[in-house]
């Protein structure tokens, strides 16, 4: 018996206006975002080192993230996986004393180039965090629009952009009658999808996800995973997860990290049936964790 999605606080997901058929599983509809232009975008990380002061957290990583695929990063706590993806959108350097070396390129563009504006990098490489973090003083509408407003992007039709983003993440039916209500009034799973809509509204090329489902209940988790499956049609996705089953479900290829190093990078099927490295085998079979 599948339990109903639990609520954190505020409005129940079930009380949203709309017919029962609408309330039931609205699927994400990425076609709402319009025709996709151009080919996908790939990210290449090479020789990446990251430090927190003297602590050497990431020790020379080379990974290619193929376009329009989901790559999962797994590994035990403290292995450097969150640090590593934060180097991709240059969030790592926001921490006092933190620095990164090496190269990260988006297609041919060097993210760490000398004259590169950090905010423009982050507009193009979006991020979704572990704990849903909608802006508490803003309504649902304003939250989705926040990305555009905060980055100073002029949108010809802001309302349309917001509506499309909400449709894309499958949240439209649940919130269309209460767009002006506070964003924090939604359930945990809805809040996370709201944050994804906020990221998508800015039209990034890559989406980084740092344990996006850790704070969600199983049903909400599955809906977000279903959304990720849809999202990869338009974006290149990198997801850090400590849940191996999740990596197995959503990712095309999986990376295993340990102590700041890359141990194995294989297609997901291979990594979970015939891992190449002994340490990978021990980790995924739970011999250590």
């Amino acid at each position, binding site marked *: 018996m599948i339990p109903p999605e639990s609520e954190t606080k505020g409005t129940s997901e079930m009380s949203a206006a709309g017919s029962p058929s609408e309330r039931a599983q609205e699927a994400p509809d990425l076609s709402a975002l319009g025709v996709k232009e151009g080919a996908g975008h790939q990210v290449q990380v090479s020789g990446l080192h990251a430090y927190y002061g003297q602590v050497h957290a990431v020790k020379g990583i080379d990974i290619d993230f193929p376009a329009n695929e989901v790559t999962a990063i797994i590994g035990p706590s403290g292995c450097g996986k969150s640090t590593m993806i934060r180097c991709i959108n240059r969030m790592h350097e926001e921490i006092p004393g933190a620095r990164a070396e090496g190269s990260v390129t988006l297609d041919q563009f060097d993210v760490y180039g000398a004259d590169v504006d950090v905010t423009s990098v982050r507009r193009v490489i979006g991020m979704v965090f572990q704990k849903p973090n909608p802006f508490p003083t803003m309504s649902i509408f304003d939250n989705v629009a926040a990305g555009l407003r905060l980055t100073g992007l002029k949108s010809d039709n802001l309302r349309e952009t917001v509506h499309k983003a909400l449709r894309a993440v499958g949240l439209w039916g649940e919130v269309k009658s209460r767009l002006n209500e506070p964003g924090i009034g939604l359930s945990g799973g809805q809040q996370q999808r709201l944050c994804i809509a906020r990221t998508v509204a800015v039209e990034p090329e890559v989406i980084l996800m740092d344990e996006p489902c850790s704070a969600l209940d199983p049903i909400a988790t599955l809906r977000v995973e279903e959304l990720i499956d849809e999202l990869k049609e338009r974006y290149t996705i990198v997801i850090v997860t400590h849940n191996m089953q999740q990596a*197995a479900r959503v990712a095309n290829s999986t990376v295993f990290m340990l102590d700041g190093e890359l141990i194995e990078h294989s297609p997901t099927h291979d990594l979970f049936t015939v891992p190449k490295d002994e340490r*990978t085998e021990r980790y995924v079979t739970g011999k250590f964790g």
Partner: protein
Amino acid sequence: MQETRHQFREELKGLEQQVLGGLDIVIQQLDRALESVSYQDVELASMVVADDDRIDGRYLEVHQGILSLLARQAPVAGDLRIVAALLHVIRCIERMGDQCVNIAKLVPLSGYESPKDKDILDALEKMGQYARSQVSQSKEALGSRNVELAQDLVHQDAEINSLNRFIFRRAVEVGDDPDVREWAMFMVLVARCLERIGDNTVDIAEQVVFVVTGLFREMADASTPNQRTPTA
């Protein structure tokens, strides 16, 4: 490094022991079935038929155990391969058990004190020995994850196959006595059962290679004589 998932490991080991035990039962059944053929012992044959329940029971136990393990523990990598292999192997065990029953059922049909052909009898005896040793070797290979032993089974199986062909030819040429010919037909059927048992051990060998290397290749058997075995 501290061993985790203790219960899971115990369960998995338990399942493997049950499967290996199943192979022991097959060996027992095979021995008895062959003896009943040699001595035309109808009573022994009926015991073999009755005891097949043990194998069927073992099959159900292992099947349930695997389902439960998959549902509750989500095995991956090496653990997943061994679970998949065990499921395959227990089916082979069940089929081998059925072949032993088939052999036993042929005993009363082949008549009492019927005339026999010495060549056929000798060949059958040799086939029986090969079959027995193959089942035993497959158990060893699985239990110790020994790829060389597994691959050697193919060679032994080649012997069984050639003996099977010999018995068939002899049965065709066995002479004009209708009693002898009838007996020979039954012996051909027995030989076929033994040959099938041999094929099943080759299946088990393939699974052993899969568990160790992650690769699954059909090994050469009677149907695909020219396929080469994979190197470890």
